[in-house]
């Protein structure tokens, strides 16, 4: 399947994600679509307020959870770092990680959208 091959090339652990769903590839595809919509609606950008970022932390935490469960490893690892830095009151460092992860994230989202459409 082209979608899965493309995602694998972007570092997504597709086999692990599908196995988590008992091998249900169709459901995995559907959840990838939901993931793309969710992450776009959250729209976390590096210009967030460095004094007041509790909402950003919650959103990053949510993205980390679903990315992990779908085995979208690059995004999961990136947001794991971001959440950890935000919880340790290091928003500047979190922004740097976010800047680094956003192009990878956008690539994965584009890949999902292109293949699902």
């Amino acid at each position, binding site marked *: 399947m082209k979608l899965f091959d493309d995602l694998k090339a972007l570092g997504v652990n597709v086999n692990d994600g599908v*196995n*988590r*769903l*008992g091998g*249900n590839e169709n*459901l995995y595809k559907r*959840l990838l679509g*939901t*993931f793309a919509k*969710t992450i776009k609606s959250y729209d976390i950008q590096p210009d967030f307020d460095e004094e007041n970022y509790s909402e950003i932390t*919650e959103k990053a*935490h*949510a993205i*980390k*959870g*679903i990315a*992990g*469960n*779908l*085995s979208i490893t690059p995004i*999961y690892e990136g947001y*794991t770092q971001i*959440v*950890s830095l935000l*919880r340790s009151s290091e928003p500047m460092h979190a922004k740097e990680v976010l800047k680094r992860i956003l192009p990878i994230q956008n690539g994965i989202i584009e890949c999902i959208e292109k293949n699902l459409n």
Partner: protein
Amino acid sequence: MDKEKTILIVDDMEINRIILAEIFKDNYNILQACNGDRAIEMLNGAYDISAVLLDLVMPGTDGLGVLRDMKKSGKIVAIPVFLITAEEDEKTLMEGYHLGAVDIIRKPFMSHFLKHRVNNIIELYGHRNDLAKVVEEQIARLNHLNQSMIEILATAVEFRDCESGEHVKRISGMTKALMTEVSNRYPEYYMTADEVDKISKSSVLHDVGKISIPDRILTKPGRLTPEEYEIMKLHTVKGYDFLMQFPDIIDESTYKYSCDICRYHHERWDGKGYPDGLKGDEIPIWAQVVSIADVYDALTAERVYKKPFSHEKALEMIKNGECGTFNPKLLEAFESLTNNWKNNN
């Protein structure tokens, strides 16, 4: 595995709920809640839920909020809760455990292990809940049996007194109603419904000491001589002594009530009763209640030596102090209660 059991999945992220539902759908019915408030609603609704998979971080009522509610309602004892978490700090997880959570589910989910952990705990809780139900039923049966034995004993004593056994039943019913009325009216005499029930059950033994009174006195149709009356009065102390010898025949939590009622149900508010001449609230309120119920029943019941008095006449005699002096608050409650009964019949 049967599919009789139901798991409630609580997570604000739809993807996480769908993944968990997929993992468990073959073995369980699945319910989903997208926030803590909805989860609480479902837990308090008609669903028979065997386990809860609960996300900690949610908008509104979070996972700890749901746990607090379950602890308050007592549901946490019967329903295992698994906390779903990505990286919460140790303090939050410890709080979750203290509130009664059984285990932590970390994201990303490891389906195979997760299935086994949840299945095992649900099975364990199922056995525990079944066992608790059996124990509860056995305790109820034992209590019922014990109460029946006590009633048999009280009725046997009454038969010696040429009564049919109905007297103790009426006293028990009247004690329950009057104690409830007094408890509702006067905060200083407040008792829970459970305690009132225990007092009502204890009241059947109020005359058990009559077992020690000789037949010639107990069943004498005419007026007792002063000497005979002194012997008759001993039934309070004898009944108390009797109960003191057999503490095991009565449930521990009702034992005090039974002993007090036996000994003090002939005490009077002005200190002129017997056996100890207690005055006012030195007399336990439960003994005061039984005492007024006992007098009213004696007046309104037919005996071989007298016709029954009407409710009005009995009430007048009690209020006039012809049967001794009673607590004015108790009299007020008693009058209101018995008038209501009369008006409703």
